[in-house]
């Protein structure tokens, strides 16, 4: 089933993950991902029809905060590590034309 990974798949996943891979990296990624998925396909052998997917191991539920303001002005901390800053805001490349 390794053939599901095509050049287009790698291209597409690169867009989703925001990774620009070099040609060599793409070749390697195609190989690695194909092998890994073949290995993961082992799981298909298990009958899971009656099984509920488990996203949390424990049945902890209803963890809430009360609607009370606990934070003050933390903008100085917030912006401390910003690679680009202006007027107390994060500076980013233009988002629209």
């Amino acid at each position, binding site marked *: 089933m390794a053939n599901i990974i095509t050049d287009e*798949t790698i291209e597409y996943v690169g867009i989703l993950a925001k990774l*620009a891979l070099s040609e060599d990296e793409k070749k390697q990624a195609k190989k690695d*991902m194909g092998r*890994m998925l073949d290995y*993961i396909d082992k799981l298909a052998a*298990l009958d899971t029809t009656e099984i509920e997917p488990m*996203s949390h191991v*424990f049945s902890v539920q209803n963890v809430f905060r009360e609607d009370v303001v606990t934070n003050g002005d933390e903008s100085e901390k917030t912006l401390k*590590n*910003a690679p680009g800053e202006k007027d107390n805001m994060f500076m980013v490349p233009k988002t629209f034309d």
Partner: protein
Amino acid sequence: MDILAYSAVELSAAIKAGKVTAVEAMEAVFARIDEKESTVNAYVTIDREQAFKTATITQEKIEKGELTGMLAGVPVAIKDNLCTEGIRTTCSSKILENFVPTFSAEAVLNLEKAGAVMIGKTNMDEFAMGSTTETSAYGVTRNPWNTDHVPGGSSGGSAAAVAAGECFFALGSDTGGSIRQPASFCGVVGLKPTYGTVSRYGLVAYGSSLDQIGPLTKNVADCAAVLEAIASHDTKDSTSVERKDTDFTTALIDDVKGMKIGIPRDYFGEGLDSEVKDAVFAAAKTLAAKGAVVEEFDLSLVEYAIPTYYTIAAAEASSNLERFDGIKYGYRAASYKGLHDMYKKTRSEGFGAEVKRRIMLGSFVLSSGYYDAYYLKALKVKAMIKKAFDEAFAKYDLILGPVAPTTAPKIGESLSDPLKMYLGDIYTISVNLAGLPGISLPCGIDTKGLPIGLQLIADSFQEKRLIQAAYTYEQTYSKEMR
């Protein structure tokens, strides 16, 4: 007495008794760091000035009787994926090379409250993805037992620092074995607590449903004391569990009479090194001789744990690591054309190969058309694996097995074949999938002179059983070693 020969708890007792000061302990640690660090490379960041400053203040507090805990005055190393306010936290990645957190992880704060004094931040596999500490952007860490070998990973820096005496104990994180496996490779004790026992607030997430913070220590008593200090119910972590039984040091009892221990036959098949196998079986016999009821059984589904784990962990990681985008903190590519190019260049230059590999895999298994076949399927198998453990723990108090199939491999041997490296996680990762506690402790040394680890696994919230059995074994083992 050589200060470095003390365990953490012994050191604190000696400081409180006035035999040694926290500053002297710190001096001893730094003397060892100066001697070893150039070859071992256990740390990414060391803050010598801050360490001595804090040690001095801590000594004063101890003298005034303000600090009385079991870890007061003890120098500690922190894995570099735990946020430390004002101290660079890199996750051993280029993308966070200049990131200075504005808050400290809850576990770190708990240690500060207990009076432990931070030395610095330890090296790791980048974003905790790896089993050798070779994927770090800040150089490999070497195994203090034999510097041609890896220390294991991803908490390799923490394990190596403890083994080399470059700290008295360390914190690590364990998503698929990242505390237990390096502890095993470096001959120290490492414990992965029940999911939810230690707050994840301030731990830079890899696989959020699997990550737990835990201790790496010189012995089981230290391990219990550290776990007691860091375990807490934290309202900032929704998955944090409220436990009343966190007095783990009360379980340091030399007795396993009547304890039922199961050995999964499936753990001793193909791929397991014979020396490891022999050492682990010998450990089982030691516990049986102490009165434990030891028998073999079929755990089932063991071979499915790795594909399940890598699907879930990669999926969560692909999402958790989206925030590293060059906007709010960390590395930003020097030149780019527009927003999307900035994202791509920043992330491609900032992440290493293994991290990119897992992000790609994770993005794929969540993508449209594959979610059910891969991600949802993995969540279902996870439920089955949990059930298999539930059934095992209906019969046994503990499960005993190896930590890893082999002892520490040589540097450079593992990365060329990722899948083969992943297979090395076979004995540790199902514990994370099921949210269970597991401990790794030394049980022998192979003919290459490298440590062998023994793993004990307990049912959820049964750390005390784990600690009691590990302590009992350690009493006999350390006598034999002398």
